């Protein structure tokens, strides 16, 4: 596969996942609002902080009101990670590799892009239509995954897009969890209060993890929620699950079987994956949840950088390789 194409496919996977997760971020608050007692105010600042774009936000906007926050997360073209930027980037990457996509995948992605663009132009999200709009975006993306699942050949391209998707999801799950760190309770006494539980529940719902949580653990309890979202082996949005699958993709791409590693991407990803494999939730909490998640995000970014170096960088040293056919 052409390096440039692999790069685009990888970012296509990442941007699609990012689009979905931005809809999920916003969903945290929509879920909360449905349950919040009347005297408690909506908090949008935690979402902005968790996305990591707090500085960008405050350089453009002053208040953390609902409309501005949604606009920033979803429709602001100056925010490189907003829903509209991510969908646009996904589509641009898809356009660059359109020759390898199935017709259905391309058309549905294109329709999704037009839908989001139209939503931005018509501002339907300002009215009652907001919840519906973001749900439709989520379904639109899941439709794409569904189409790909039974029409894309399991060759390099598939694994590159899934590598991107899993790394992105690992990062975003950690950020959604981090939202809780930033949500302020009215007072320290409220830890463990019904309001506290409401926050946790909203979080679980936004990653479609509420029912799974109930089945696995029963009662709402922060320790177990952290375990589900970070370390669980079976939940497809947990950081551990994502890293494990990202590693499988990576090893399939480079054809490394058995133990050890054959390039720096495999080394750094394998190290992080095993670290999580042998940790329990106490290790996570004891180092401070926010600090722990922060560390994860930094490591995932570095892994992405090594993937770029190993596979996409159009390297002039290529020409010195020995395996060139005459």
């Amino acid at each position, binding site marked *: *596969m052409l*390096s*440039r194409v692999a790069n685009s496919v990888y970012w296509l996977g990442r941007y699609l996942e990012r689009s979905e997760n931005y809809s999920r971020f916003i969903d945290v608050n929509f879920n909360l609002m449905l349950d919040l007692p009347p005297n408690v105010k909506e908090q949008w600042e935690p979402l902005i902080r968790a996305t990591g774009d707090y500085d960008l936000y405050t350089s453009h906007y002053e208040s953390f009101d609902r409309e501005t926050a949604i606009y920033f997360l979803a429709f602001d073209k100056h925010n490189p990670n907003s829903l509209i930027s991510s969908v646009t980037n996904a589509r641009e990457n898809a*356009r660059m*590799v359109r*020759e390898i996509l199935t017709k259905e995948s391309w058309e549905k992605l294109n329709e999704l892009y037009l839908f989001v663009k139209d939503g931005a132009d018509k501002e339907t999200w300002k009215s009652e239509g907001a919840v519906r709009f973001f749900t439709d975006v989520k379904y639109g993306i899941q439709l794409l995954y569904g189409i790909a699942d039974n029409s894309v050949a399991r060759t390099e391209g598939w694994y590159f897009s899934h590598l991107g998707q899993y790394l992105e999801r690992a990062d975003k799950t950690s950020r959604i969890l981090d939202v809780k760190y930033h949500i302020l309770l009215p007072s320290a006494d409220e830890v463990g209060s019904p309001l506290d539980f409401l926050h946790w529940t909203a979080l679980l719902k936004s990653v479609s993890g509420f029912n799974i949580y109930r089945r696995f653990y029963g009662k709402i309890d922060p320790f177990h929620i952290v375990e589900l979202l970070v370390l669980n082996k079976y939940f497809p949005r947990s950081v551990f699950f994502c890293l494990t699958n990202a590693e499988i993709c990576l090893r399939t791409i480079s054809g490394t079987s058995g133990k050890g590693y054959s390039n720096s991407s495999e080394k750094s990803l394998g190290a992080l994956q095993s670290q999580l494999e042998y940790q329990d939730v106490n290790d996570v909490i004891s180092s401070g949840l926010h600090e722990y998640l922060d560390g994860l995000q930094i490591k995932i970014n570095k892994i992405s950088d090594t993937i770029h170096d190993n596979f996409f960088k159009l390297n002039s040293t290529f*020409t010195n390789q020995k395996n060139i*056919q*005459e």
Partner: protein
Amino acid sequence: MFVSSYDSKTHYDEMFEADGSCRPHYSELLDMLKSLSVEKLQQLQFTTDKAQMAMGMTFNVYHDKQGIEKILHLDIVPRIINAAEWEKIETGLKQRIYALNLFLQDVYNEQKILKDKILPKELVFSCPGYLKPCEGLTPPKGIWCHITGTDLVRDKNGEFYILEDNLRCPSGVSYQLESREIIKRVFPNMLSKLGVAPVSNYPNRLLNILEYLSDKEKPVVGVLTPGIYNSAYFEHSYLAHSMGVELVMGQDMVMVKNHVFMLTTNGLKQIDVLYRRIDDTFLDPDVFNPESLIGVPGIFKAFKSGNISLANAPGSGVADDKAIYAYVPKIIKYYLDEDPILPNVPTYLCSDEKDRAYVLDHLQDLVVKETNAAGGYGMMIGPRASGKELKTFTRLIKENPRNYIAQPTLSLSTVPTLVDSQLEPRHVDLRPYILYGEEIEVIPGAFTRVALKRGSLIVNSSQGGGSKDTWVLQH
């Protein structure tokens, strides 16, 4: 659908005779259109637009800052060409392409046609499309113009004329194929009822002629594109996709020991045949335009050494220069000793003193074209031109006569087109595609462009033109 107010008297209309009666090969289509309400037709048009948007059948417009992506309006009423008309077009095009290919081989090698003074030397050598580095070159299998899209128009008597030869990177074939996919769904039964020739195996045929250019059993083929901002990017990716080959950009390739390699995640992979959709002069900054960032430095040398095949061969642009166009009937006669089956539009060369005097005297009756421009740019339609435009072109012609030709204003044929709530006559042209491999094939269909503005003769997509699906009847 109401058609009694339709005007078929002023021009040659392809559906109706001047007396308003329907031409036989259109009668079934007309019956069907009549049976549909205006609302139904508008609804079908609406779904067509939606389908195009969803398919991303868009093109980018140059000189247009807002919104670079536009769809090319596809009118739902198809244009039909009957079997007898098509047969003439097909044989005529084969003859023309065969002769032009011989011309290209000759003009870059022995130059017999120049020595025999059929064509003035200065005229050939002053063509921007004449590339000196190609002298002495014989491309693989002796084929220069593998893919051609020739523009034809019909005059008021219904006769087809060749308007332009496009031998470099003719675009539009993807619209022809995708339009058929859409119109097939709009009128599902009509195609088989009328016996419309299928066009869908074009990608297959294209791949065949590309693979034919290499001696390897399974050559690596690619489509070379300037990138997503090119106006024809949709087509480049469409063709790569439907042939199942790589879509490459200049940056994806490196030269190693005079061979061309692609950079892949597994290292380097040699590439054997490129369908290049980059202009000749941008292909290789080492040999042609040194400013080019989209080409591959060194690729021309590899081509000349026979290490890679390029379709179309660099240098073939000399044959579609609008000044050379005037000589094509003589070129056919010279190489084939045959009269051209499809006539040229009479053409005045402004470089010729006598012609120039005539042109300057009759400017308001003529269409003036720049010899090396495309896309409807750099032209003036005399009867529609303002006094200021006429003055400008008088000056331009005098300053640089070699750059201009003039032709009588043709009254292009019309085909019924859905405009708001009725069918109205709109002018069309015809661009069939010709593939030159083991033999020459003309794809039975065409990209029909339609001038959507009432009375307009400019069909170019960059100038507000639309398109129609073109149905070629098998019998």
